[in-house]
């Protein structure tokens, strides 16, 4: 079995596991599944209401039929109904996914480029002190809890210095002109995106730096130096090619982290995204929304993972021809 088929099979199995977890969590936990799935209190619900909810959810059927119904609903795009928001979960999600992706995608790209650039530069440089101080800075950033970093950034750059807006995606009055509106959006996105970039940069930087550092001792680098190739070209052409495949794998594995990072950032910047929705749903114990969010986030993460694996195969000729034995 090649690595890529293995990855795809495990992604499908992961999705299946998430569906099973989602299905069984409300039914196995202590407490009434009907109350859990509707997010109601025992006191606030009448017997007739309870019965109608029970019928709607089909809790009184045997588990196998319930599971079948659940799967059919899921694949027809019905993620449940949130009684807290009085809307279908799919509808709630539809407005929020673009906002989260707006944060996550630029952050992933920026963090990857910055991590690659800084890692290559610091791994190759002869200035030990510079390398050491940058690395230490990243180690410290890595240890800071994500929400604290976001809070500190808001406090200093928005609250104290008033350079950027405090939160949200738009000003209260959005400028009419398209370019001005775009500028307004960018201004609102700068702080959250830089927070996520800072949060997801350290593992990428460390990995690239360490790989480049060990690569500089290899003979092909020595030979390239002997041929008089500029250090810029050695860094970003010769070594870069060898760092790429493990780097892309790391970016793929980090996606879930970036998504969770953007969720935390959304909460603090009060951006209407999936993270904010998940946070509110957790506070109000709105279980259908929680589960729907979890399901959609998992799908995004898993799909992105498959995508990175395919990119990895395309970039790395050794993998394309199956040189790595699967272990």
């Amino acid at each position, binding site marked *: 079995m090649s690595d890529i088929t293995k990855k795809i099979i495990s992604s499908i199995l992961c999705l299946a596991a998430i569906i099973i977890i989602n299905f069984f969590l409300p039914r196995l936990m202590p407490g009434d599944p009907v109350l859990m799935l509707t997010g109601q209190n025992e006191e606030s619900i009448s017997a007739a209401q309870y019965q109608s909810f029970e019928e709607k959810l089909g809790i009184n059927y045997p588990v196998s039929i319930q599971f079948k119904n659940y799967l059919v609903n899921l694949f027809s795009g019905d993620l449940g109904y949130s009684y807290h928001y009085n809307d279908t979960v799919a509808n709630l999600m539809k407005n929020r996914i673009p906002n989260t992706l707006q944060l996550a995608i630029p952050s992933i790209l920026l963090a990857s480029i910055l991590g690659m650039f800084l890692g290559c530069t610091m791994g190759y440089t002869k200035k030990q002190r510079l390398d050491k101080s940058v690395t230490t800075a990243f180690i*410290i950033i890595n240890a800071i809890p994500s929400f604290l970093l976001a809070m500190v950034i808001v406090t200093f750059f928005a609250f104290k210095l008033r350079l950027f807006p405090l939160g949200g995606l738009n000003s209260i009055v959005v400028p009419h002109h398209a370019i001005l509106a775009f500028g307004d959006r960018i201004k609102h996105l700068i702080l959250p995106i830089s927070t996520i970039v800072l949060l997801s940069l350290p593992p990428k930087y460390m990995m690239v730096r360490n790989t480049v550092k060990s690569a500089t001792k290899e003979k092909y680098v020595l030979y390239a130096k002997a041929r008089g190739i500029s250090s810029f070209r050695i860094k970003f052409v010769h070594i870069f090619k060898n760092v790429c495949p493990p780097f892309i794998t790391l970016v793929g594995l980090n996606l879930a982290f970036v998504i969770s990072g953007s969720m935390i950032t959304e909460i603090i910047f009060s951006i209407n995204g999936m993270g904010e929705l998940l946070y509110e749903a957790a506070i109000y114990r709105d279980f259908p929304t929680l589960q729907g969010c979890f399901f959609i986030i998992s799908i995004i993460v898993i799909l992105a993972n498959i995508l990175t694996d395919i990119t990895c195969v395309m970039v790395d000729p050794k993998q394309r021809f199956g040189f790595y034995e699967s272990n």
Partner: protein
Amino acid sequence: MKAIKRTSFKKEFYSLYFGIIIMIVFLLWSILPGIFSPYNPKEMFSPWLAMSLSHLLGTNDMGYDIFSELIYAASRTLFTGFCAAFVSLIIGTTLGTLSGYLEGWAGEGLDFIINIFLLIPTLPMMVVVAAFVGPGTFNIILIISLLGWCSTARAVRARTKQIKHSPFVEALTISGISEKQIVLKHIIPNLSDVIFAKYIMSVASCMLMEATVSFMGLGDPTHVTWGSMINFAFSRGGFSRGVLNWYLPPGICITLCVLSFYYINSHFEEKSKIVVNEEQSYMD
């Protein structure tokens, strides 16, 4: 020559000293909070006091002394971290060793399970499960450890595979020693450095996870941890008022704790790396 050696020797240990000193301070805080804290954590003063000599970090919205709360929160935070890391270590080591040692479908299947857990987005999953299970320290430990064992399992698996193909295990197999004994008495002791390193790092990551879950408002409401202190500061107006002395200190404590674990770990990791390198150069 000697002088150079001494300085380099000392410098190597700076980070280790840093880590150990911070660790000792936090452990003392958690074992004997009464000695260090000026007040009882439930003693009420007037709310929103600024930093002063009588209240080192001021008071929060309920009028509790923040410095005392910080010290009393240390034990719960560390306890959660150590316990969760321990449970995840046991799960990770067991699954990792088995998947590395077993051949055929059993090993492959366990490997698949590890890969599946690696793919699950941890934070959303933790929030969902924590919301269902309900708040409580024990529940949080369980959730974190059930989701945090993958990296341990992966590292243990890789090392087990390496050891399994080494000559001494082959010699043991040939001399007819049972597989159970090989795994328990010969492979697991050889994994100890990986396990130790992973344990320390997973205490750090478990503490971060606990802080995040507590920040999302799903922590144990009866015991204050550093994460829930930040959550209170965020949800009860400390953040919007810009009261830095409320939410910054617990965050700095978490950061310092994670850093100290990192430095202790990296010291031992470097040591084990040197040993490996020497072996390799010897082989060449």
